[in-house]
């Protein structure tokens, strides 16, 4: 797989100005009840949504109501992620109103419905970077992008960081607004002027004001917390030692981590080391949490590159810190975007549902084979970072994370460098230099993946293989567009 085949500079103006209405909000603002007259809804259309409202999203379900009311058929949904709140999709899938889905992450009843085989034309799962590529390369044409917009101004400009439903940044919606045939902004906050334009008013066809575009409780977590689990803290301690031992932790260090408790504990450990050794990093990226904000404000990083805010602290920071930058999904992780950030990462901390003897990782399906997540930025950052570290308990709820073979490949093992567990650290054999260095300079318990597998099996016994049918319910596409794996119907 060629990670960066076909790199080129996107000239975003190629995609702009897909309407002739200019900026003026007064010419674009319509009532929700008028939408069906303005948009010629018909069978076979493609609608897109971003997921910055996460499980508090109040916008997509409005459109699903319209699909149901008009009994539209063969609709394709291009949603950057799908959450349990999108339950109304299930009925539409079963009735063949929605027959195809593109997404980077799906959890809850929609995921279960797809795994049960109800989605007629199957699901196309990709990464966040891949989604930007697919849209900007026009591999799929969006008819209407419905953009949940925390703030719209009198010139129809949109941003994500003002208003009662602020989500901080709209990184995943930028490509949609650039390429969709029509863009409908749905907002609960119209102001005179937005401070920081993320989507230019020229790209917006219609603006609809409603009472509430989302439930703030579901949009971001109040606070994200480091784990208090002693084993989780132990894993974080080992991971920090791996990073320190790798030699990458020096001035200019760049870092990404998720919002999971162990991942945050790694950030906490790194913060202590960086303070102690007076190390100043260049940037931290990705979904941003309060922990990374703390590191920025402590002077440990020069800047944050933020595609999505994970907690309230990050939302507040993006307004007050000028070095807390917003970025689009394309700038974040599109392999065809010459400026993508992930290729400049030193270290990324990631999770895994399963990892196999060849370091392939599954974060898409659960131990029962049912879809319960997806890549998000997993395979993008793993491919880009110099050191992609998986942190996970070896055994959790009597299930081993290490398998002889993963159920589904979300991220190919070639791009995974290290697995850190409470029973020790496995380093991809391709990094013999790192193995030798850590052996010499640290007292970490270095093991092979096979040794970790054996330990896990000694604790859990060998699990029975999941029984999946031969019927495919979808594909997993790698970030460069190649087919990575299939998703199969789960038998009861």
């Amino acid at each position, binding site marked *: 797989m060629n990670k960066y085949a076909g790199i080129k500079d996107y000239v975003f103006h190629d995609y702009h100005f897909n309407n002739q209405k200019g900026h003026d909000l007064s010419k674009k603002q319509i009532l929700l009840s008028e939408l069906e007259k303005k948009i010629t809804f018909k069978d076979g259309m493609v609608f897109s949504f971003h997921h910055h409202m996460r499980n508090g999203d109040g916008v997509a379900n409005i459109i699903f109501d319209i699909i149901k009311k008009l009994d539209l058929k063969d609709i394709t949904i291009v949603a950057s992620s799908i959450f349990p709140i999108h339950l109304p999709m299930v009925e539409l899938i079963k009735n063949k109103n929605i027959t195809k889905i593109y997404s980077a992450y799906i959890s809850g009843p929609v995921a279960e419905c797809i795994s049960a085989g109800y989605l007629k034309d199957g699901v196309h799962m990709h990464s966040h970077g891949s989604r930007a590529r697919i849209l900007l390369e026009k591999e799929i044409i969006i008819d209407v992008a419905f953009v949940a917009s925390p703030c719209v101004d009198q010139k129809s400009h949109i941003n994500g960081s003002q208003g009662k439903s602020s989500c901080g940044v709209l990184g995943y919606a930028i490509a949609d607004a650039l390429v969709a045939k029509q863009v409908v902004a749905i907002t609960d906050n119209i102001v005179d002027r937005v401070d920081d334009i993320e989507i230019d008013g020229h790209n917006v066809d219609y603006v609809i004001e409603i009472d509430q575009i989302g439930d703030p409780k579901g949009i971001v977590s109040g606070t994200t917390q480091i784990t208090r689990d*002693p*084993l989780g*803290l*132990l894993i974080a*301690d080992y991971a920090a030692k791996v990073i320190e031992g790798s030699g990458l932790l020096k001035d200019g260090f760049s870092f990404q981590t998720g919002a999971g408790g162990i991942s945050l504990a790694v950030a906490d450990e790194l913060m202590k080391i960086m303070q102690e050794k007076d190390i100043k990093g260049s940037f931290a990226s990705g979904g941003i949490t309060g922990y990374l904000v703390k590191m920025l404000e402590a002077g440990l990083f020069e800047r944050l590159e933020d595609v999505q805010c994970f907690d309230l602290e990050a939302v507040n920071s993006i307004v007050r810190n000028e070095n807390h930058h917003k970025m689009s999904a394309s700038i974040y992780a599109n392999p065809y975007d010459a400026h993508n950030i992930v290729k400049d990462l030193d270290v990324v901390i990631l999770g895994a549902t399963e990892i196999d003897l060849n370091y392939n990782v599954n974060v898409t399906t659960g131990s029962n084979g049912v879809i319960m997540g997806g890549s998000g930025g997993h395979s993008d950052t793993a491919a880009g970072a110099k050191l992609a570290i998986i942190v996970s308990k070896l055994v959790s709820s009597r299930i081993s994370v290490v398998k002889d073979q993963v159920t589904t490949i979300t991220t190919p093992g070639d791009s995974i460098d290290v697995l850190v567990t*409470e*029973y020790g650290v496995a380093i991809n054999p391709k990094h013999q230099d790192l193995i030798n260095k850590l052996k010499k300079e640290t*007292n970490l318990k270095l093991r092979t993946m096979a040794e970790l597998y054996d330990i896990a099996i000694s*604790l859990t016994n060998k699990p029975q293989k999941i029984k999946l049918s031969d019927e495919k319910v979808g594909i997993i596409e790698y970030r460069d567009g190649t087919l990575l794996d299939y998703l199969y119907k789960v038998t009861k």
Partner: protein
Amino acid sequence: MALPFIRSALFIPANNPGMVQTAHLLGSDAIIFDLEDAISLNQKDSARELLKAGFEFFQKDEVIRIVRINPMDSPYFNDDIAMVKSFNIDYIMLAKASISSVKALAEALSDTNIKIIALIESANGVLNLKDILSASPLVEGMLFGAEDFALDMQIERTKQSDEILMARQQIALTCKALNKFCFDTPFTDTEDFEMLNVDIKKAKAFGFTGKACINPRQVKYVNAVFTPTIKEIEYAQEVIFAAKKAQEEGLGVFSLNGKMVDAPIINRSQLVLENALKAGVINE
């Protein structure tokens, strides 16, 4: 007799399967599986059974296994001994140790390889420490339980621990004289790591060889303080190097950086290097 290298000893309730299974991973030099205070009266039997199954299933690794049993004046003492003596463990920790209870336990363990750690948690225990530690050759060390000690003394426990100063110093002195290891009392505020650090440093300064922990998050702080520092190791290496040279030259006492070095300093340097080796901070 060389004392075992135990910087940290972590208490784990014996009735928690998840913790029993993973305790050895948490970085402490020893685990104290607790059958006493952490176990409610109606779970004493099941806790013993769980430990038995755990020790049968999990192979013993480098972590030292200790089981704290109930005191002799409790109804669980004999049942505890009867079952625990068959476990694959290194030590039994005897709650509220006295001369008579140590002797009783030692007799019961005479056909095993298990040794004894005395838990000293009363005024009498502190005063009679020398005799308790000498009551059987199986007794290799002790733990100071300051919470029960303060209760017995009817004094208030504080984070500064001025109220147990004399007891601590007397305990460390006695153990040193008898060549027994001594664990300091656990620090009970599991969120205050700053004062924990102060407390550990005090214990080390008094002569304690290690400290008990009641939360896994305390372990790394205890290990850090009781692990020889780079400065200590470098000085010890200098001393040993100079001692070898002096020996070759037939000198008993010699000078290093303007200071006299004799046998006690050489012995201490040797111990520092041995402990650094056991802690994994230097190689052979």
